[in-house]
């Protein structure tokens, strides 16, 4: 006999599918209204990302930074605080990785390692600041972390422009990284690189931490009821700081991986927004690390499709953000099928089909 738990899982999957279809339907209607060749547009949007290896590569590449920030958000928000500093940590991680790559001399692999470690360190420091301030002074984490993001941006740009800008470039780009200081690609045609492996290892580590260690258990408890955590003998303050540090290190690492995987010099001109994306990813993945890659792939797929759409069709580029918004909101709409679900549960329970 089927467990009610599994049965509810099935309904949940069904709900997601229905939500997805509904959102695509709405998008479809929008496209019909705007476009002269709606079928082609829709094809480009939905199938487009799969029409060439390179495009499919784009989907996978695009998911990389999202995986890191998604994981980062899971850790940062685990203890129930609204730490948004992953945005700044990601950016400053890339800045510091650039600095390290351009300052240190040695074998490329060592430089890479040193750069990534420095990125992790600075990332941890950045997200750690709001946590420490919270614990020591009770300052609101949302406020301090939002402010820190701006500070990261400006200080980061200052560092790049003042110390590392390549005067040969007509833009605020750094010098080129030394030869071999990059993350090599796995498949020639695409830019999918070994950063993917790092990302997946990180996913595993986070999953492991949260599900297999007392540390992860304690984080969950702190997030669900601080009083209870304290009463259980958990050192709440330490955990708030520790989870922030780890979350920031992951975001910083994400910055470094994005940098060395996709570019050969520092070229961000502003905050990347991957941190905010991380919130979406974390929510869609229901704060479970092992769902993060899928959520990231999905968002990346959506974006790749939308980019192809705006390139190949007469749909204005602004529609991309509108379409994204619709899909994201509907995916998380819990109410879809809730009546049906309730009805099914009742039926199954009454008929004794499930326990």
């Amino acid at each position, binding site marked *: 006999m089927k467990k009610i738990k599994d049965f509810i899982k099935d309904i949940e999957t069904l709900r997601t599918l229905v939500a997805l279809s509904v959102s695509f339907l709405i998008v479809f209607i929008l496209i019909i209204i705007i476009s002269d060749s709606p079928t082609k547009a829709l094809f480009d949007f939905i199938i487009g990302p799969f029409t060439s290896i390179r495009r499919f590569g784009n989907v996978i590449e695009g998911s990389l930074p999202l995986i890191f920030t998604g994981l980062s958000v899971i850790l940062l928000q685990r203890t129930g605080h609204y730490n948004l500093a992953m945005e700044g940590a990601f950016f400053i991680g890339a800045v510091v990785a650039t600095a390290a790559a351009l300052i240190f001399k040695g074998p490329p692999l060592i430089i890479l390692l040193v750069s990534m470690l420095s990125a992790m360190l600075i990332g941890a420091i950045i997200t750690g600041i709001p946590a420490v301030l919270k614990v020591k002074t009770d300052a609101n984490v949302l406020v301090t972390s939002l402010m820190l993001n701006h500070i990261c941006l*400006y200080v980061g740009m200052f560092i790049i*422009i003042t110390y590392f800008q390549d005067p040969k470039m*007509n833009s605020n780009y750094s010098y080129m990284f030394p030869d071999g200081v990059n993350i090599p690609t796995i498949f020639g045609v695409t830019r999918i690189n070994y950063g993917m492996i790092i990302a997946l290892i990180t996913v595993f580590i986070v999953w492991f931490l949260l599900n297999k260690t007392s540390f992860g258990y304690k984080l969950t408890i702190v997030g669900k009821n601080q009083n209870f955590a304290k009463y259980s003998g958990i050192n709440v303050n330490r955990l708030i700081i520790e989870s922030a540090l780890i979350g920031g290190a992951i975001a910083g690492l994400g910055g470094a991986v994005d940098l060395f995987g996709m570019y050969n010099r520092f*070229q961000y*001109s502003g905050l990347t927004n991957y941190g905010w994306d991380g919130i979406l990813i974390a929510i869609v993945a229901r704060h479970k690390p092992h769902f993060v890659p899928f959520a990231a792939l999905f968002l990346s797929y959506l974006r790749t499709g939308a980019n192809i759409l705006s390139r190949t069709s007469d749909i*204005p580029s602004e529609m991309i953000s509108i379409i994204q918004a619709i899909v994201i909101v509907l995916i998380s709409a819990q109410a879809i099928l809730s009546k049906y679900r309730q009805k099914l549960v009742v039926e199954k329970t009454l008929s004794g089909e499930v326990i």
Partner: protein
Amino acid sequence: GKENGNNNSNDGSKLSVVFVVTGQLGDRSFNDSAHEGIKAMAEKLGVETKVIEIGRDQTVWRPTFEDLAEEGEYDIIITNGSNAGELIEEIALEYPEQKFILFDTEMESEIVNLYAISYLQNEASYIAGVLAALVTKSDMEYANEDNKIGFVGGSEHPIITDFLVGYVEGAKSVDPNITVYVSYIGSWDDTAKGKETAMAQYNQGVDIIFPAAEQAGLGCVEAAVEMKKYIIGVDSDQAMLFKGVNEDSANVILTSVLKEVGNSLVRAVDLEQKGNLPWGTFETLGIKEDGVGIARNEYFDKNVPAEIKEEVINAYEQVANGEVKVTSALTDDSKIVEEIIRSVAP
């Protein structure tokens, strides 16, 4: 699409170009200027055109260019090279069949399917500096005693610094003791902050500001109108944009530093149609080549006193015939550039 996009004049079919905007249209600046050029091509040269906006997020740039080059649907891809230059070089090598025209950049390697145009904005802003220095000491209605002029940038950026250094040199050529206030808004979009920044300068006795801040610079114009001061526009002929819509704004914009991105693109495509575009080279357009300049529109005529006009035109000629060599932030030593800017700091 066609299987490749290299030949066009041969088979007699229409030349097709695509303008890839690595940013957004509506900046009232180089992207809009280029866009004007694209429209002109379609009208005057009968070229088939398409515009694609891909925003500032660099991760989507490569896939877009690769897709376009691979499909080969357009003969020429036109884009801004100051940020995307390096990327385009790589892709141009990868897809030798596809032609690219880049503006706002100089290419060093000689890639045969690439053509680049760069602009000596420092020359035009030199003229603006001359004008500003003359205006601030003049007895024009909104000018005051103080010998102070202003510059507002969006953020620090090599191209912005290039504008700045020319402006400062021009002003110094009129009066070496002049003070130039320099502020950065920290954003290219935030018009309110732009206004705030300009007002802070005006409150210090500055009476004319040259903002190079894209959209955020529009806020500076408002500050000028409200506080009865002057502005020098940037990139496009901004006074004319306000003509008939908002005369107050049009009247405080004494002139604009023009970067003729559109015209230069039209010229390049025209040459290509005639089979004369020297692929694999780059050209630098300055005042002499009319690639940059200042706007001499009706408001300039109406609002700028004759003796100032005369001196401005004088300076124009000096730069055009090479008598005056303007320092560049893009090619000259950054120490020297800094030195010049610092020499007039308050």
